[in-house]
C-alpha cells in the first residue's frame, strides 16, 4: 500500500501532546507521509537476539501452548449493555483459562528488552502499572489511558498523568537498562476529547535515545485478511505475577474491525499498552496496542493508516 500522498489526520486521530508546542509540530508532520506501509525494527546494540519459530511465534524454551484452536464463534464484541443490566455471568476474566503465559527471564536481550515496565503517577498522585514498547530511539507506544485519564470520577485524577517511570527489560528487581522518567506524552483527540476506546493509544517521549541501545519494534498497516491469518504475540508486565516480571503469550488473531484487533491472548491488569505484534521473516512488527480485557477476547487499538502516521511523527 503506497503512502506517497499527502494525508490529513481526520477527526479522532488528530494528535495531541501535553507539550503544546509539540502538538503543532506533530499535526504538520502528519499532513505528508512518504514512507511505506511498514516501518522496520531495529535490534539495538549487542542484541543477542533470541530466535523465532517458523510459525511466527517466539522461541521460548518450555513454553507449551495448550490450545491453538481458531475461534469458531464470534467473539464477544458487545461494548455497552443497557444501564440497568447487571448480570453478565460468572467469572469472565482477561486470562482465559488455561493460562498459557510464560515468564521471560532473559529480558536484557532483544526482543524482550523492547518492552518496558511502566510506573505511572497520575495527576492526583495515585500510582498505576502498565507496559510500553519502543518504536524508535526515544519513543514508546502505550495505551491512551496510560498517559491520559478520563472520567475517573475521582477529584483531581483526570487529565495527563504527571509522570511515567520507564523501565525497559525489567526483570523483577533487576533493571538491566536502568530507569528513566518522562513527563512528555502524546495521544489523540479521539481519546483525549471523546474517550472513544477505538482511539485508545498514546506515546511516551523519553529525554534520551535509550531506544538506540534496546532496539525497537517495527509497525505497520495490514489488510484484514493478513491480520486474520497472523499469530499475535504479546509480552508485558501483568500485575498478577511477581512484581516487575515479564510474561509472554501468543494466539492466532481472532477477529478485526476497522479500528480494533481481538485475540485470545492471556493478559492481566498491568499489560495495558503492550505491543500486539506479528513476526515476519524473523522481524517483529506491532499491529495493535493492547488496551482492554474482555469476557472471551482481549483487544487492542489497531494500527491503521492514521495511527501509523501518528506513530511515525511521534517517532521522529
Amino acid at each position, binding site marked *: 500500500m503506497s503512502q506517497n500522498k499527502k494525508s490529513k489526520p481526520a477527526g479522532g486521530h488528530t494528535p495531541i501532546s501535553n507539550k503544546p508546542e509539540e502538538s503543532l509540530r506533530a499535526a504538520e508532520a502528519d499532513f505528508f507521509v512518504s514512507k511505506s506501509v511498514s516501518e522496520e525494527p531495529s535490534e539495538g546494540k549487542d542484541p543477542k537476539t533470541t530466535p523465532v519459530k517458523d510459525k511466527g511465534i517466539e522461541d521460548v524454551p518450555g513454553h507449551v501452548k495448550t490450545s491453538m484452536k481458531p475461534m469458531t464463534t464470534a467473539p464477544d464484541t458487545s461494548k*455497552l449493555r443497557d444501564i440497568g443490566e*447487571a448480570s453478565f455471568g460468572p*467469572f469472565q476474566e482477561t*486470562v482465559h483459562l488455561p493460562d498459557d503465559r510464560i515468564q521471560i527471564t532473559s529480558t536484557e536481550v532483544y526482543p524482550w528488552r523492547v518492552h518496558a515496565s511502566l510506573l505511572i503517577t497520575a495527576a492526583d498522585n495515585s500510582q498505576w502499572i502498565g507496559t510500553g514498547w519502543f518504536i524508535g530511539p526515544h519513543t514508546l507506544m502505550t*495505551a491512551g489511558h496510560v498517559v491520559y485519564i478520563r472520567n475517573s*470520577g*475521582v477529584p483531581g485524577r483526570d487529565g495527563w498523568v504527571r509522570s511515567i517511570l520507564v523501565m525497559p527489560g525489567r526483570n523483577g528487581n533487576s533493571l538491566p537498562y536502568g530507569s528513566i522518567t518522562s513527563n512528555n506524552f502524546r495521544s489523540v483527540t479521539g481519546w483525549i476529547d471523546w474517550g472513544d*476506546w477505538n482511539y485508545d493509544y498514546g506515546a511516551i517521549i523519553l529525554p534520551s535515545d535509550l531506544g538506540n541501545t534496546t532496539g525497537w519494534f517495527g509497525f505497520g498497516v495490514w489488510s484484514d485478511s493478513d491480520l486474520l491469518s497472523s499469530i499475535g504475540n504479546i509480552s508485558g508486565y501483568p500485575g498478577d505475577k511477581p512484581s516487575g516480571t515479564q510474561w509472554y503469550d501468543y494466539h492466532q488473531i481472532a477477529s478485526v474491525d476497522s479500528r480494533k484487533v481481538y485475540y485470545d491472548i492471556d493478559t492481566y*491488569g498491568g499489560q495495558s499498552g503492550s505491543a500486539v505484534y506479528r513476526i515476519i521473516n524473523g522481524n517483529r512488527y506491532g499491529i495493535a496496542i493492547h488496551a482492554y480485557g474482555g469476557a472471551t477476547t482481549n483487544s487492542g487499538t489497531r494500527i491503521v493508516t492514521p495511527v501509523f502516521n501518528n506513530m511515525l511523527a511521534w517517532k521522529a
Partner: protein
Amino acid sequence: MITMHGTGVISGVVKDNNGNPISAARVSYVSGPVPLPDIAALTDNNGNFVVTAPVPGEYIIEIISERFIAQKVKVAIESNQKKHIEIILSR
C-alpha cells in the same frame, strides 16, 4: 465505545491480619460488565486505592501482593455510586 452513564467509584483499603496497611499491592479488574482497561492500580502507603467503575454492574477485583494470598472481591456498583471496601490479606 463505552458511554459513561453514571460512572461509579470503588475505593478500598488493603490490610493484613494485624490491621497494618499493605502498600504497593496491585489492584486489577478481572471481570466486569464491559471490557475494561488492562491497567492496575497500586495501593498507597496507607493501603488505599480508588478505581473507576465505568458503567453500573458487577465487577470482580483482585488484590495481589507478595507474601500474601491473593484475594478476589465481587462488587456491585449502581449508577453514580461510590462504594468502599476493606480487604484483609492473609499470609
